[in-house]
């Protein structure tokens, strides 16, 4: 069967926006947990574990929490729409907005988790050498964890406008 015109634009229009939303919710939490797990164990090389060494682990965990928060917020945005209006432009826009917000949050949390993990491992090693270096490297780590925060803020703002059409 030959269709008259098959192009990417037509294919994208035929995919239900719910597909994008559901895939996106999974991506946001999956990728951000992946980012949190990277290098989370690198802080425990020094034999004396004090609470200071576990601060970088807490930062990594906060990255995963951001992914969970955004996933919960976005799943409350999925309303059901009557059959006739699934491919309405407004509902397509809502689907794409949710998908975009999740990709933003997922990948921002991935790189933030990598960054905080690397900084945290060097923080623990330098603290074992010289205790005065700890606070300075902690300040750098706080800036690193702000990356994930930016992604979450932008993702929440984008998804706040995703309203499905009224019945």
């Amino acid at each position: 069967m030959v269709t008259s015109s098959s192009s990417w634009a037509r294919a994208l229009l035929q995919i239900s926006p719910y597909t994008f939303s559901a895939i996106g919710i999974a991506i946001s939490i999956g990728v951000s947990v992946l980012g949190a797990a990277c290098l989370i164990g690198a802080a425990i090389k020094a034999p004396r574990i004090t609470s200071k060494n576990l601060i970088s682990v807490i930062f990594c965990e906060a990255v995963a929490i951001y992914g969970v928060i955004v996933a919960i917020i976005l799943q409350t945005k999925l309303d059901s729409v009557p059959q006739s209006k699934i491919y309405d432009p407004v509902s397509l826009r809502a689907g794409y907005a949710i998908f975009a917000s999740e990709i933003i949050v997922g990948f921002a949390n991935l790189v933030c988790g990598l960054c905080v993990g690397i900084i945290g491992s060097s923080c623990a090693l330098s603290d074992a050498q010289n205790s005065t270096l700890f606070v300075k490297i902690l300040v750098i780590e706080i800036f690193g964890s702000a990356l994930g925060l930016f992604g979450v803020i932008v993702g929440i703002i984008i998804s706040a406008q995703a309203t499905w059409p009224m019945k």
Partner: protein
Amino acid sequence: MEVMSKFLIASILMWTVPIAVLYGFNNNLFPGSASVSQESLTLWSGILAVISVNVVIVLYIISAMKEPSSDKHEPDPRFLADAKASIKQQPGTTEVDSSSDRAKLE
């Protein structure tokens, strides 16, 4: 262990507080949450949840910095024993090295 229990309490708080804030906002459990529109509801609930996570992190950092740092660093006993054993071996090898150096000089 006190360190582990503080860490576990902080972790559990980090998980439950933002999710509780989210559900409280969506189900109108907070005093001011019934009068906002649908769109800004997500904004407010998201921002408050993120702020609550950061507050828990800051509290954990403050309590970690207040822990008394042990000034006398006790070295690992096994490492110390290995180091002492290698020092005892050393005088035998240095005698051999210095005699070979003297041989080269001549």
